[in-house]
């Protein structure tokens, strides 16, 4: 996917003024924030479960290479073929090679964010392979030539009217407006595609080391069709998705759907193990699993390693007041919200996403809901420290910070400077006690007044009061 994260600020401003989007985001908040709140209490020992989930993920990350090779052994023993992709380009090349080997003309795809990292659809289409997205949201986006704006609800930015128009235009059928009618229309168009596809492409929510299985959670059932009907199934996922045992997965599955969509469990949980055996009635003849690094291993062993615990539930963005106001596209790459503000700079380079680590008030709402307890605000702050160390902050900011630091460390100069500045602001505030404009801080005053200070600093008043007090007078 093209990287547009450099334009975050401009994009965010545009999104704030997009009425349709604002309404869609309000609906998302009701559905997902409300949804999580309604069911998360079903887990009686929520804190312990989150801690256990984080520990499961940490245990894997401490010995990731070993767990991966364990997974590879088990998967291979059950008839799957495991591939290792260092970059997105490698993923595209490997899938194309598999397609050529099995004479694939048409591929049906279920949702995979990793494939968005690689731009897989475009790469396959360039090879003459037709690719059809079968997740309803992704299908709509494919018709509209748009990118997902949420990792769980990719088409959340579009309203029903827009989808009605899109279907009428692309399907050349009478315009429908009801949700179930629209779904039926999509289903009727997609069903034959599953049967015609030579290859199914999916992601994987987890890889289970002890059984060599790929696990996917879905709500639409398209995942099952994609992974079982076509002759060839390719599962593409990040190397960090491996977990040791089925038991571990069951702990994570208590948290994932509840955190993501407010469901106690998703409609489908599919555990895909091996290819079709001699005694099996169905399943793919060939099962390929592509393990993707694409920058992930660079986080191992460093301060940012906790980010690799992520199970892609989307709770951090659902609860993020920044995401709630601008949606996912403003972030400019595959992953939006707090997790995206950490992953994007890591994957595409801090220089291509300089705003993202700063586009947060560090309010902590994300970390409070993250099922695997990733300290997202701390990680954002670490990226800011990195920007500072690399001299990537704009000079006025650095100069202001230098001046402030020096003053804060020199109390006498600090007292004098604040005394003067406060007096000036007080006078500028007039009788109303409000500043409508403030040079150098238009970011504040364009949308808000600046309440004027009281006039004298606390320090001045306190010292005077203290002196008067010693002379037996009433304080202040």
């Amino acid at each position: 996917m093209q990287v547009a994260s450099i334009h975050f600020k401009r994009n965010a401003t545009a999104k704030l003024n997009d009425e349709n989007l604002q309404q869609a985001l309000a609906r998302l908040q009701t559905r997902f924030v409300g949804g999580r709140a309604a069911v998360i209490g079903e887990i009686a020992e929520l804190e312990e479960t989150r801690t256990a989930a984080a520990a499961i993920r940490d245990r894997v990350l401490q010995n990731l290479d070993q767990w991966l090779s364990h997974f590879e052994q088990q998967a291979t023993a059950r008839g799957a073929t495991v591939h290792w992709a260092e970059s997105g380009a490698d993923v595209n090349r490997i899938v194309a090679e598999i397609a050529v080997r099995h004479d694939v003309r048409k591929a049906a795809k279920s949702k995979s964010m990793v494939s968005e990292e690689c731009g897989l659809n475009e790469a396959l289409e360039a090879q003459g392979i037709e690719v059809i997205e079968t997740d309803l949201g992704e299908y709509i986006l494919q018709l509209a030539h748009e990118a997902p704006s949420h990792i769980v609800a990719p088409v959340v930015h579009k309203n029903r009217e827009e989808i009605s128009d899109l279907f009428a235009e692309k399907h050349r059928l009478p315009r429908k407006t009801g949700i179930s009618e629209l779904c039926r229309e999509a289903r009727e168009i997609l069903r034959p595609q599953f049967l015609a596809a030579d290859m199914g492409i999916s992601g994987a929510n987890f890889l289970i080391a002890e059984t060599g299985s790929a696990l996917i959670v879905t709500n639409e059932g398209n995942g099952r069709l994609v992974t079982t009907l076509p002759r060839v199934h390719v599962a593409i996922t990040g190397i960090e998705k491996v977990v040791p045992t089925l038991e571990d997965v069951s702990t994570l599955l208590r948290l994932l759907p509840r955190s993501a969509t407010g469901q106690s469990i998703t409609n489908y949980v599919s555990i895909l193990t091996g290819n079709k055996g001699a005694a099996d009635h169905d399943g793919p003849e060939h099962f390929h699993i592509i393990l993707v690094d694409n920058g992930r291993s660079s986080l191992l062993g460093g301060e940012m390693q906790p980010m690799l615990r992520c199970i892609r539930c989307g709770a951090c963005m659902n609860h993020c007041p920044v995401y709630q106001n601008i949606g996912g596209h403003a972030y400019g790459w595959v992953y939006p919200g707090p997790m995206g503000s950490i992953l994007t700079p890591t994957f595409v380079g801090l220089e291509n996403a300089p705003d993202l680590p700063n586009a947060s008030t560090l309010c902590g709402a994300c970390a409070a809901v993250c099922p695997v307890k990733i300290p997202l605000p701390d990680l954002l702050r670490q990226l800011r420290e990195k920007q500072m160390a690399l001299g990537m902050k704009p000079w006025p900011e650095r100069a202001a910070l230098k001046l402030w630091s020096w003053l804060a460390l020199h109390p006498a100069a600090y007292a004098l400077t604040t005394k003067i500045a406060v007096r000036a602001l007080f006078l500028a505030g007039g009788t109303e006690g409000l500043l409508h404009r403030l040079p150098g801080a238009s970011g504040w005053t364009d949308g808000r007044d600046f309440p004027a200070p009281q006039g004298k600093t606390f320090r001045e008043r306190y010292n005077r009061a203290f002196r008067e007090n010693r002379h037996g007078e009433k304080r202040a």
Partner: protein
Amino acid sequence: MRVGLFFTCLVDAMRPRIGFATISLLEAAGCEVSVPQTQTCCGQPGYNSGDRKTSQALALKFLTEFEGFDYVVTPSGSCASMIRVHYPKLFQDNPAVLARIAPLSLRTYELTDFLLNIAKLENIPGQFRGSLTYHDSCSGLRDLGVQKQPRALLAKMPGVAIQEMQESTTCCGFGGAFSVKFGDLSARMADNKCTHIEAAGTDAIVGGDLGCLLNIEGRLRRRGNHKTQVLHIAEVLADQEGDA
């Protein structure tokens, strides 16, 4: 109890009366209050901008100024969180400093938390009469668990009616430098907050962090609301008479 007051850079510059209200509350709770005069800022602006070095220097400065007190109290959840939660993180690889700063961190309290749980203030001197709604500022709420404390103290005031707003725990959009750097986004977040405040329809919006309160006040006034009072919790709890 000997309490050192960390009055915060924002109270110093913008609303000294919050500092005096804090002193009178601590005294009402029976504390002996000292105000070290060389204090400046807890270092949070630098810390959140990625300037770890300055934050460390300011943490050390804080240590020398406040180490001698039984407790340190500050009328701000975010400064309290900086000291309590983040100072120790700054010295993870410096055991000598950590051994001194970690216990001091644990003796540092946000004002309402201290008044309720440590000083056990029973009689609230404040004279405020009317309805109010409370905004839970982020760091105090999520780092320190300050949520019930201010409400419990307010409940002891006979003239006060609390009317909770929707989403009282959602960030108001202040975020320090964020409010200037991403001005329109920050203002939108403040605007959402103001909508909830106005829907609560109270005489006052009250909170425990001046940064958030200035943000909220600035947006309320720009929206044309000159009626809703914006008050720090210390101003409501303290008897304001005679204070600067």
